[in-house]
C-alpha cells in the first residue's frame, strides 16, 4: 500500500493547488471592490451586474470553456493582443488556465463577500463616514473585520471550486503534463485508459481533502457565530 502511494505521481495535485491558489488570490483582489460596490449601490444597473456575475454558475462548463477558448486563442483580438504584446500564449498554458478559472470561479468569490457586506449594520458604516473615514478605510478597518466568516467562506469555496473544476480546464488547457494536467483531468484520463487503481487513489485523495477543507470552514463559522451570538 505504502509502495503504491509513493509510486503515485502527485504533480497533478500540485498543479491543481497552484492553480487554485493563484485564482483565489487574483479573484480576491478583483472581487472585493466589486462585492463592495454591489453591496452599497442603489443603482438600477445592480441586477444586470449581479446576473452577469452569476452566469458561470448556470452555464455548462463546455459553453464557458468554448467561449474562453475562442477568446483566448489568437483568433480573437484579446488572444492576439497578449501573444503579440507580451508573447504570452493563453490557450493550452497554465496562464490561460488561471484566466479561465478566474471567470469560472468569480461568483463563488463575489457572492459570499457581497452577502457578508450586505448583512453589515448600515449604521455602523455610516458611523465610520461621520467619523471622517473614507469609504476605503471603512471597508478595510470596519467592514472586513466584521465579516470574517464570509471572508473565509469566499476564499475557501473559491479555492475548492477551482480545484474541482474540470470542463473549462479541459477545454482551455487540454492535458499537458506539468503544465495543464490538473488532478481532475488526470483522473478522467486514468479512467479512460482503465487504470482504475490510480483513479481510485486520486479520487479518494480529492474526497478527503475536500471534506477536510469544508469541515474546517463550517467548524470555524460555527464557532464565530457562537462567539458573536450570530443568528445562524
Amino acid at each position: 500500500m505504502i509502495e503504491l502511494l509513493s509510486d503515485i505521481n502527485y504533480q497533478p495535485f500540485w498543479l491543481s493547488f497552484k492553480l487554485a491558489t493563484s485564482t483565489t488570490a487574483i479573484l480576491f483582489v478583483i472581487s472585493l471592490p466589486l462585492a463592495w460596490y454591489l453591496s452599497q449601490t442603489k443603482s438600477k444597473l445592480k441586477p444586470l451586474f449581479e446576473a452577469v456575475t452569476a452566469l458561470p454558475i448556470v452555464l455548462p462548463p463546455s459553453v464557458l470553456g468554448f467561449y474562453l477558448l475562442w477568446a483566448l486563442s489568437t483568433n480573437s483580438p484579446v488572444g492576439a493582443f497578449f501573444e503579440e504584446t507580451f508573447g504570452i500564449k493563453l490557450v493550452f498554458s497554465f496562464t490561460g488556465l488561471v484566466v479561465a478559472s478566474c471567470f469560472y470561479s468569480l461568483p463563488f468569490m463575489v457572492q459570499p463577500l457581497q452577502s457578508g457586506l450586505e448583512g453589515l449594520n448600515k449604521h455602523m458604516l455610516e458611523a465610520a463616514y461621520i467619523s471622517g473615514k473614507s469609504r476605503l478605510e471603512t471597508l478595510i478597518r470596519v467592514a472586513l473585520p466584521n465579516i470574517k466568516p464570509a471572508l473565509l467562506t469566499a476564499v475557501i469555496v473559491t479555492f475548492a471550486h477551482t480545484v474541482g473544476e474540470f470542463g473549462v480546464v479541459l477545454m482551455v488547457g487540454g492535458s499537458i503534463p506539468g503544465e495543464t494536467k490538473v488532478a481532475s483531468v488526470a483522473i478522467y484520463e486514468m479512467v479512460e485508459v482503465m487504470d482504475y487503481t490510480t483513479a481510485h487513489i486520486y479520487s479518494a485523495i480529492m474526497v478527503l481533502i475536500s471534506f477536510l477543507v469544508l469541515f474546517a470552514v463550517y467548524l470555524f463559522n460555527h464557532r464565530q457565530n457562537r462567539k458573536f451570538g450570530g443568528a445562524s
Partner: protein
Amino acid sequence: MIDIDISKELHGSGGEMMLGISLNIGENEFVALAGKSGSGKTTLLRILAGLESGNGRITVGDEVWQDGRFSLPPQKRKIGFVFQEYALFENMSVEQNLLFVRPDRVLADKLLEITELALLSKRLPQTLSGGQKQRVSLCRAMMNRPKLLLMDEPLSALDPLMRTKLQHEILTLHREFDTTTIMVSHDPSEIYRLANRVVVLNQGQVIKDGSPKSVLLESRGSQKFSLEGELLNIIKVDVIHIAVIAIGQQLVETVIDREQANILQIGQKVTVSTKAFAPTILPA
C-alpha cells in the same frame, strides 16, 4: 448658526409626503425634535448628517453644507451622531471605538471617565449592556469635538433608570464641549430636562416650535394639571361612579358623575385635568 431650508419627497408608510423644513438654530442650543413616527424627524437628522440627499440649502456658520446639488460629504461635516441602536464598531474594544475616530488618548480617557466606562475600556461591544453601549456611542460621537451633535432617539431602547443617568451625561457633555445638539425624542420628561427648545414635526412640516414649557405644558383655561390617559374601567359604587384611568405607568381612580359615566367609553383616550392650587407633593 445653523440655517436649514430643505425639502424632500418621502415615500413613507402613510403614502407620499413632502418634507419641508425651515429652521434656524442658534449656537449651543439643545433642540428636541418631536412628533409622530413617520413625520420626518429621522430623515431631517440624516440630511443634516449628509447621509441622505435633499433639496435646498444648509449653512452652518460660514460653511455651506448643502446648496442645490452640492452636498458636503459626511466625512467633512465634523459632526457627532448617536444612533438609536448604538452602531458601535463590533470588532473594536470600547477604547478602540473612540480612538478610531481620532487617536487622542487624553480626550478618550476623559470621556470614558465622565461616563464611568474607564473600567470597561478593553471590553468588546457585544459584552456590554444596552446602556453601556449607548454611552460608548455617545463618547465616540464626541471624539471629533463636534460643533453639531445629532442624536436619533438615543435613549428609547433603555430602561427608565438608565435613561435618567444618560440624560445627565448627555447634558454634561453638551455643556462641556459647547456643542449644538439636536435630539429626536418622544419622552416629554426627557425633553423638558434636556432641551431648551422643542420643534414638533407632523407630516414633514414644523407644527410647533418653542420652549419646552410652552409646547409641553398644555393646559386649557385655568386648569393646570392636564394628563393624558386611557380609561380602563368605570365601577359603580352605590350612587357614585369611579373611573380607573392609566396615566403613563400609573393607575388612578377618580369619581365621575352619572352623566359622564354614560358618555365615556372604556378604552377611550381621555384627558384628566384639575386645578393645581394646593396639591400634596411628597418624595417617592
